[in-house]
């Protein structure tokens, strides 16, 4: 999977590509509009992350440029401004998603996976993790072909865990993923424990291996390693 990251903030660019490389993506970097548009014109990518506020141009113009190529590339807009107008405009001209800085890398990863799943695997949209199989369209989950019943949020949580398998996920990133980023998440951490426990119980009771590990006070890790 080839991803192009267009971001003028070097350190941020660095973090994003480090994390995505750990996830197994091939990352290309561009730190301004010029470089970004050249790369878009020359190469094909599976997904592009574009910052709106580039020093020499607006990232939205890159999205427009990409759309003229009629490619099947997924686009995520990154912005430091939580501006509704930017968001609506971005999605209008064909971006698949919109993230506001600061975001969790686990969240970005989950969004990229979701886009790639929608765009690239027309025939097979299911998510597999060993004996667990989840279908994002029907919201059905199977453990060894046996259907199990999850609530919508439990389903989202499972998908989030699988997308970020083998990664430490903070409680905060889980709260934000499930309930959006403007709720005062600090108070909701207590809920998360009960929430994760419920999911774990349902999976294990239905015969799945317990892949969930608690990571000290930080959060959780969904992993098939020890």
């Amino acid at each position, binding site marked *: 999977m080839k991803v192009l990251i267009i971001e003028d*903030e070097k*350190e*941020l660019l660095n*973090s*994003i590509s*480090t*994390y995505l490389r*750990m996830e197994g993506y091939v990352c290309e970097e561009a730190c301004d509009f010029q470089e970004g548009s050249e790369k878009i014109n020359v190469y094909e990518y599976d997904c592009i992350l574009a910052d709106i*506020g580039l020093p020499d141009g607006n990232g939205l113009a890159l999205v427009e440029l990409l759309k003229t190529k009629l490619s099947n590339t997924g686009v995520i807009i990154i912005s*430091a*401004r*939580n*501006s*509704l107008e930017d968001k609506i405009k971005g999605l209008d001209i064909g971006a698949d998603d919109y993230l*506001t*800085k*600061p*975001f*969790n*890398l*686990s969240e970005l990863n989950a969004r990229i996976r979701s886009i790639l799943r929608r765009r690239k695997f027309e025939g097979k949209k299911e998510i597999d993790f060993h004996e667990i199989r989840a279908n994002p369209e029907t919201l059905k989950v199977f453990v060894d072909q046996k259907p199990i019943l999850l*609530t*919508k*949020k*439990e389903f989202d949580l499972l998908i989030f865990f699988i997308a970020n398998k083998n*990664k*430490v996920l*903070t409680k*905060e*990133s889980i709260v934000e993923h499930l*309930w959006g*980023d*403007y*709720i*005062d*998440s*600090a*108070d*909701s951490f207590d*809920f998360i424990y*009960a*929430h994760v426990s*419920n999911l774990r119980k349902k999976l294990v009771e239905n015969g799945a291996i317990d892949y969930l590990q608690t*990571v*000290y*006070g*930080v959060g959780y890790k969904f992993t098939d390693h020890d």
Partner: protein
Amino acid sequence: MKLLNKTTLYFLAVSFIIFFLGGVLFYLLFQITIDNSINIKLHERKEYNLKQLAKSDSLMLLFQEYTDVLSIRPINKIMSETETLSDTLIYDSIDGRFLLYRQLSFYKRVNNHNYFIQVRRAVLDYTTLLKDVFILETLLFIAFIAALTLVNNRVSKKLWKPFYYILDKINNYKVDLAQSMTLPQSSIKEFNELSAAIEKMSVKINNEFNIQKEFTENASHEIQTPLAIIKNKLEILMQSPEMSKEQMDLINSASLATNRLSKLNEALIILSKIENRQFHEVDDISVNDVASRILSSFDELIKIKSISVEKNYPHRLQVKMHPYLAEILLENLIVNSIKHNTSPGVISISTLPGKIEITNTGTGSTGKVDRLFQRFVKSNPKSKSLGLGLSIVKAICDTYSFTITYEMVGSSHKITVTFSEQS
């Protein structure tokens, strides 16, 4: 008091004084004129009588004239050469009262006889004059007031029309619409000057507002980027293998603090955006639908806390507001009712005509009820919450002139948002 009434009042006071002084002057002038004409007449009469006296004798003359207008007494000696003018009262038998007369007295020698002659003339009754002048003045004054009131009411309304138009424009001026005011020209110089001044001011306000807005946005941008860097670096650091518990705790603390700072920044930006009225788009929002959607998104949390939800939706509540703000408003209130609830507990949401009531069971008083909607006020000082949720709610309510009230019902907390008085 209206400017018009105030000026009219001053005007009336001044015109009253002028009318009064005018009346006095009028009266005095009248009196002097009459006096003069009487004196002239008396002198004419004197000359005439002397001529008559020269032709005939005094007794004849006495019969010719009434005694009250002429008296001629023969005397031995001329006492004085000068003539004197004086006023005297003479009883009038027809009127049955004393009347005022002006008399000219003099001594004269005619045909070798000495005479003391007095010619008189009835003087106009000054009290009658005074009364007439007073009545006339009063009538004039009343006519004057009537005319003034009429002019003020009819003409002023027309004259002040541009002023009230400008006033209306200013009242409805919204700085966040980023447009300066355009006011029409009128035929009155002062109003045109006012219009021009206001237009100039609105341009200035708009500029200032835009600068402020840009600053807020830029500040948010500048703060969010370093925060994003810290946050992401910590996230990557967290993934390193072989981390000890102590190291992980350090990273976790740093990560939580960063997260808190970023939330704080976001909340303050939203708050300032609301207070700057930067959300001016308006949609028809179904409060019932939004509340239900939010409740269902917190379904799991509600179940985990063993909270039962009672929805009373006898009324479909439609409100005109920005969809994003509607979402924030209701989400904050509903999340609060979950957070500050007991376990097990009850949340009851009722939509009534024009208002929504959210009640939740809780543990005792929240203390500072009057400060509940202020920034950074927390019900529990140990809480990790930012204490901005209810101030955001309040700011949204203020933007749309909704009223929000809080009351304790037993140990339950009840928040009521009144959108409008009518349904």
